């Protein structure tokens, strides 16, 4: 079963009297364990596409399905289940809760998804170990470096073993050495966990590390493996 299927997707925004078309007739397919990169110019609609896939926004036309479930038709009350159990999100900014430790930040989505606290803690500790932050698990975000925070965010995204991970410019705020470390971890963990990945990035070097690449241009996704 496909992890993500997008068919005839259209997204428009109203700007005064004008209708702004961001995405149109966009089709996309992602199989289990596949990892793709999406590149494109600023303002081309990459983040809009991510919001739509994450169920944070609704399409104007077309359908988005994940694991056989049409998420664009789900009510808000069901969408949180989808975001909780079927999706991992990594943003450009880490968005860790500053009042919680690294460990608590990681296990919180697991706990909210109904995992037992002890089980969520064990899973979080194992993920933190995978991103090399065992020693820092009881540190607050304010006590971590930018790269470390992003590694915690990556661990958080994988706590519920989601079939699909969306990463939107995950290294956009990091320096070169931290970027490289987070990229390695992201690709390793996706491989180890068997998660499908949609990675949106400006960074062509990062995009080239993925086997399949798309470019968002003229409101559609174009396969662009020869980048």
């Amino acid at each position, binding site marked *: 079963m496909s992890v993500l299927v997008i068919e005839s997707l259209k997204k428009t925004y109203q700007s005064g009297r004008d209708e702004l078309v961001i995405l149109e007739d966009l089709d996309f397919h992602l199989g289990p364990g596949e990892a793709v990169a999406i590149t494109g110019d600023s303002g081309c609609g990459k983040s809009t596409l991510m919001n739509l896939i994450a169920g*944070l926004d609704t399409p104007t036309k077309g359908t988005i399905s994940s694991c056989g479930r049409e998420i664009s038709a789900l009510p808000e009350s069901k969408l949180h289940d989808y975001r*909780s159990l079927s999706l991992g999100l990594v943003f450009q900014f880490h*968005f860790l809760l500053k009042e919680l430790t690294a460990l608590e930040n990681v296990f919180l989505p697991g706990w*909210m998804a109904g995992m037992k606290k002890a089980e969520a803690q064990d899973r979080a500790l194992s993920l933190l170990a995978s991103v090399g932050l065992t020693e820092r698990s009881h540190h607050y975000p304010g006590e971590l470096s930018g790269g470390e925070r992003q590694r915690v965010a990556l661990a958080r995204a994988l706590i519920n073993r989601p079939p699909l991970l969306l990463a939107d410019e995950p290294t956009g705020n990091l320096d070169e050495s931290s970027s490289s470390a987070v990229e390695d971890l992201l690709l390793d963990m996706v491989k180890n966990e068997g998660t499908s990945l949609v990675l949106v990035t400006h960074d062509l070097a990062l995009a080239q590390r993925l086997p399949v690449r798309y470019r968002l241009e003229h409101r559609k996704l174009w396969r662009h493996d020869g980048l």
Partner: protein
Amino acid sequence: MAGRYLKASRRDKGLSSAVLSIVSLTLGVMALLTVLGVMNGFQLGFMENILEVSSTHLRISTPEQFSLPLEDKLKALPGIRSLLPLVDSQTLVKSSYSSPQGAFIRGLPPQAWEEDEGLKKHLTFLEGSWDLAQSNNILLGSEMSRRLGVSVGDSLSLLALTGPKFSLLQPRNVEFTITGIFKTGYLELDAGWAFIPLESALEFFAGEEDLFYGIKLENPELDYGAMDQIKPLLPPTATVQSWREYNSSFFGALRMEKTAMMILIGLIFIIVGGNIFQSLRRTLREREEEIGLLKAVGGSGSRVRFIFLFEGFIIGLVSGTLGVGLGLLLSGNINEILSGTQTLVSFISHLGASEESLSGFTSQLFYLDRIPVRILTHEVVLVFVFAILSSTISSWLATRTVEDIKPATVLRAE
């Protein structure tokens, strides 16, 4: 998480709105408990005095005296503490040193002191003792004796009307000797009441038809149950009434006074609730990004809302606990605190060579020496629950906006 947010808000802003909410709600609970304690002290004190000394818990009106076996049968019923034949009358009383004044005379058997524990508990003899052994003995309230200028051993004249029928009634002075001066702590009784032997009362002030039986119960709240037990044993001409019926207007007024005071002081909960509502709304605006994130990573609106709702609950719980603790402490020591305050202010006034000083709760100004305080457990629980409810409901209202926060705003902000 709610606990962490509360801690963080204190750390970030020093004296935060959460701390202010806790302080104001604590003070509200403390004030309400103290006022209720003092009002209970006064009101229940009055009610007990009235029920134990004057009105009794049940009254059986009967045109003829009960036989001894019937009296014994009634006394043996479960929940009955005492049963006494009584006669009430009003007359004028005069001493050698004063003009006549009105008095409420109760005639009761001389052995009433031994049979009725309530009398023993609520009558304190300042002079003499319970002595109605002689037919011309009289026991006077302390305030009445002060007004008449008499003490134990002095004589009093009571105006009696005697005659075979109403048109032939003749006024007559009957001399009584004071054998005891009592105090109940309730001015109306101390200034107007006197006790004489039942036989004298029946001879000079009332007829057989005025006789009634006063019953005291182990638990006055179980009056209707006791009435159901008593009624089948009584002759058809006898009627029984509860204290709730013949004291309804006065006790109703006391209850109304207390309810009004509770509502007025309870308004503080609404004010504090408004404060908590505003502070949580501000917190929610400040934490919009985090709320969006929690929803983006799978938290349902209601689950995220619960975090902030729980914050309000914690504020209510902490305030309720602190307020109840402080309220009990203040109520239990209110006389000492007032006395200490009075001493302190007097000392400061003295230092400043001021003529004025604070007049506290003294027997020179009030009829009572001390402020009576009575804490009722169910009221403490009620106030505690109200504190938690006011805070939680305010939080519930404030957190309605959580449902409307769109997680997409987080990604856009990025």
